[in-house]
């Protein structure tokens, strides 16, 4: 079930993967909400993050900086991160700035979750 938390951010979990939905304009206000939600999900034990950009038309400089911060936090937590449904203009921006060196891009949320599930390890039972 989708849960709007920290104001306008929608998110839900698929196993140990958290899917967080970015808003139409990723700026300081919405970026900080997404960042808080990602941190919360990681703290709750999520091992992977999908940030879904299906509603996102524009990402500004602050948005980029915040996304880099999320990538940093995820890396430090040992969690993987995938951006899904990113529009062409934003893909070009992320490519140009080098964000795509640190995240995997997926066509949509489904593909992102599927992609991440391949890496999920089954606990070994002795």
């Amino acid at each position, binding site marked *: 079930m989708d849960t709007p938390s920290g104001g306008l951010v929608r998110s839900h979990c698929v196993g140990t993967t958290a899917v967080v939905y970015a808003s139409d304009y990723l700026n300081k206000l919405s970026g900080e909400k997404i960042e808080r939600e990602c941190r919360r999900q990681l703290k709750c034990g999520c091992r992977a993050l999908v940030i879904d950009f299906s509603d996102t038309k524009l990402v*500004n*400089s*602050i948005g*980029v900086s*915040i996304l*880099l911060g999320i990538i*940093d936090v995820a890396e430090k937590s040992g969690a993987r991160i995938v951006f899904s449904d990113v529009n062409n203009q934003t893909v*070009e*921006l992320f490519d*140009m700035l080098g964000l795509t060196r640190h995240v995997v891009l997926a066509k949509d949320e489904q593909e992102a979750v599927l992609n991440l599930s391949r890496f999920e390890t089954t606990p070994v039972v002795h």
Partner: protein
Amino acid sequence: MEPSTQKLIHTFGALADLGQEIAGTGDFTEMVRTSLHLLLGTLALRRGAVVDCSGAGPLRCVAVWGLGEQAVNSFDIDEGEMESFLGCEIADSLVKNSSTANRFLTRHHDKLAHEGIELVVPMIVRGEVTGLVLLGGKASGEEFSNDDFETIRAMVRHIGVGIHTHRLLEQLAQRAGENRRLYDELRAIYRDTVRAFAAAIDIKDKYTQGHSERVGKYSEIIAREMGWSEEEVEGIQIAGYLHDIGKLIVDRDIINAPYRIDAKSSSELNRHPSAGYEILAPIRHPYADIPLMAKHHHERLDGRGYPDGLTDEQIPLGAKIVSLADSFDAMTTDRPYRRRRSFEDVVQDLRENSGKQFDGKVVAAFARAILKEVRGETKDRRITKMLGKSYLEGEHVETLLTDLIADLEADSHAKAQTF
């Protein structure tokens, strides 16, 4: 879109946002934090910090992203190192080039590299290093290009000026606050001096000691009840303290006569409002009209007062308030030739003389203020203290006051309809 065009649009957008952020009047720390985000996001730098180093000593972190605040604050800088930034090109501020003349980079090279800081850019305002911007590497893993350096230089300059301007405004606000405190202290000194004067005036009249102080307090209470501003209330309190200052020139024997004085002495005594005006007029009071309130506190609405025989609208409202406070205190304190009057008598006097001697609206305001104390609606019990606890006791007191207020308000309403 060509990557170079897109980069240009992205950078322009960030510069526009930065200008807006710096020109804003919002929270200072938030402004610096947002500015840092804009800089990092423009070139996709993974970490950074803005630090204050307006003097030698430890760096003070103002905003940080992707770095530990404690780690940033653990750096320190000396005067020589600050100066060494002044002659450096931005390319000399690369941590990997720390063999250059930049002494700060040389000394802290290993620690900076350990924290992932690749570039240390000084914020220079009016030829002085006011802070540093510590920057991590690009997310792309590429080296900084000359274009990147230009962008960083422009944005850091903006941030530096923003911080500097904010500090100047803070200093201005601090100085304004200090001036305000000094002004308040001066006003307190002025008030204390005036109260000392009031005591000096009252000492001359052995039967009315404390009269000026009480008139000041009654005047303040009435003015506050009438909705005057705090500044105006303070002013009328001063006028109350000083209303009888002209008595200083009246013969002590006339003031202290233990009987009703004759016409000649009365004429001498009646000079005191004008004399008071002459004493007070040359003084630059911090409040308006104090000399006029002293001059006209014996005027009556019906024109039978003195010194000028003014009528209703000609009499300043402040003088009407002081007049009522003065008469009320005269009626409610013992005099050499009579005992003070009962509260019932006083209310009757106020009722009969409203519209003749006193302004009905002023009387009604005073009655409301007394009623609030009688009903215990205010913590302030100053009127009761001045009159003595037993003076306002008894169930009839509340009725007297409510009836008086109702009658005066009805009169006022009728008068308004006539006009």
